[in-house]
């Protein structure tokens, strides 16, 4: 028994070391900007960089819009598939998995080919058009996570009976979705939102090829030209992602408890 426990801990320790050691090394390296002691100078340098602030804000805004558009598209789709079109579920599963199979580079080339300056809808002609395009691209990249998060949320409630109960009380489909379904899967929607955020903040390919000042592009740029700052940036983005995951966990505790389902 004790031996088994011991080996379990050994395996756990090895796994943890595999993940944590590079992180720790990066962290220590990021603090060695001054030769004689450990300082947070690299972090100060990153935060002081005007480009850090502007690219981070840009990516943050992209993430917010991608989350909103993603919810508007995925929530009704997943809801109606669960409610009335159960047979469509395998098709939905397949479509929402496509962004994991098709590399982003293909996606962005498709975008450029379809919406370039000589196309019917020349979105790449203007900055705003390109921003729209990049948000749409992010929605697509986040689709597998957003759909699964929302679908899992819908599975935990009795969608059909709740919908019927709201309908017979006079609610139309939109009211039912907004006031009854959405609040009960709010936590699931939030985890979808944070996953989208995590993807968008670090995304490089789309932003780079569409030539937009996103955080991912900035990170790559800094990585190519500086020594200590990229490590600091890596630690910062880790902290952000973990923070987002922590928030999901925290919100999960406040999830509305659903009624016993017969």
């Amino acid at each position, binding site marked *: 028994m004790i031996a088994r426990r011991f080996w379990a801990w050994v395996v756990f320790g090895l796994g943890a070391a595999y993940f944590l050691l590079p992180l720790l090394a990066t962290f220590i390296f990021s603090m060695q900007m001054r030769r004689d002691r450990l300082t947070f100078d690299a972090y100060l340098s990153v935060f002081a960089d005007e480009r850090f602030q502007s690219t981070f804000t840009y990516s943050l805004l992209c993430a917010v819009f991608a989350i909103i558009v993603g919810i508007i598209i995925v929530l009704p789709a997943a809801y109606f598939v669960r409610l009335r079109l159960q047979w469509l579920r395998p098709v939905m599963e397949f479509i929402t998995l496509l962004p994991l199979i098709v590399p982003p580079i293909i996606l962005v080339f498709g975008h450029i080919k379809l919406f370039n300056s000589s196309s019917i809808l020349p979105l790449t002609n203007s900055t705003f058009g390109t921003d729209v395009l990049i948000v749409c691209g992010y929605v697509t990249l986040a689709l597998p996570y957003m759909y699964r998060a929302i679908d899992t949320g819908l599975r935990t409630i009795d969608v059909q*009976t709740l919908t019927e109960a709201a309908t*017979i009380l006079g609610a139309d489909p939109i009211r039912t979705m907004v006031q009854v379904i959405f609040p009960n899967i*709010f936590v699931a929607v939030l985890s979808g939102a944070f996953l989208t955020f995590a993807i968008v903040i670090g995304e490089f390919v789309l932003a780079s090829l569409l030539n937009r000042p996103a955080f991912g592009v900035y990170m790559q740029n800094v990585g190519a030209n500086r020594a200590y700052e990229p490590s600091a940036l890596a630690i910062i983005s880790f902290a952000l992602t973990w923070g987002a995951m922590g928030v999901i966990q925290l919100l999960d505790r406040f999830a509305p408890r659903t*009624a*016993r389902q017969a």
Partner: protein
Amino acid sequence: MAEDFLRIDKLVKTFGGNSVVKGVDLSFRRGEFVTLLGPSGCGKTTILRMIAGFERPTSGLISVEGKDITDLAPNQRKIGMVFQAYALFPNMNVGDNIAFGLKIAGMPKAQREARVEEMLKLIGLAGYGKRFPFELSGGQQQRVALARALAPSPKMLLLDEPLSALDAKIRVSLREQIREIQRELGITTVFVTHDQEEALSISDRIVVLNAGNIEQVGQPFEIYNKPATRFVATFVGTLNTLHATVADAGAKTVTIGTTIATIPALPASAVRGEAVALTMRPEAVTLADRDIMLEGKVAEVAFLGSVIRLKVDLGGNLVNLDTFNDQRTPPPAHGTSVRVGIAASDVLVLGA
């Protein structure tokens, strides 16, 4: 008929190639409590869901107060409904659940709050407005669901097996409460259940359904005592069967073993020598003197409290006999020879 509140005409529903409701005609009077009773798969829930608007009839008409509502969306029908799974909105407290329909109807806040209080009082849960559904027991949740359905003053109330998920004791007290509230409000109510005892105890009229067809419509007393078909007789209540042979069709006499008995219910089509099944309720069989007397042996004694149920072997026919408990006479012991009496007028003759 002008007095009909809800009418169903030649209602048919097929799913794929499978017909679930096969041309049902029904009419409900205003303020009536009607139960759709039948085994699972008989089409009772489908009929209810078509009245609610959740299923579209394959053919046929549904009308309320003379107006055709067959194609009306469920949220336009002004119907209250209670579901087996309660279906309270988990994100809203009890008060908000009850106020949901009122809000949609556009009732001002002050009036809404007064109505919620009134409904909470009606269901005996005054002061529970701020609680959340998960803090309530099943019976309390179902009462809230009832209040929520009744709050917007719907034209009628549909109850889809609302008691099935509850414990036996709560089931009985809640069904009494439902009936009391229904009487008080005078609301036309359609109740779906597979539990015959529930149906008999609560309804003004019962519609017995089997395989998508109506077997019988009638008051509980009629359904139980004068079942129209073999299905109704066996589905509702317990039934004894005695095998007999027609002795004289004209005189309506049969032989049961060696006893000759006159059975008024014997159909005119019976022929001499034909085997017939005589049926009767357990309470129609007694240990007292009646016009048909049969010799038998007590095969089983079950003391149920106020009622004693005996199984008596009448020459190969095992018959249930219900008698009230009498403090002065203990029930006959197992194996005792007894004489069993049956009133000929209580005997039904059912077709095969």
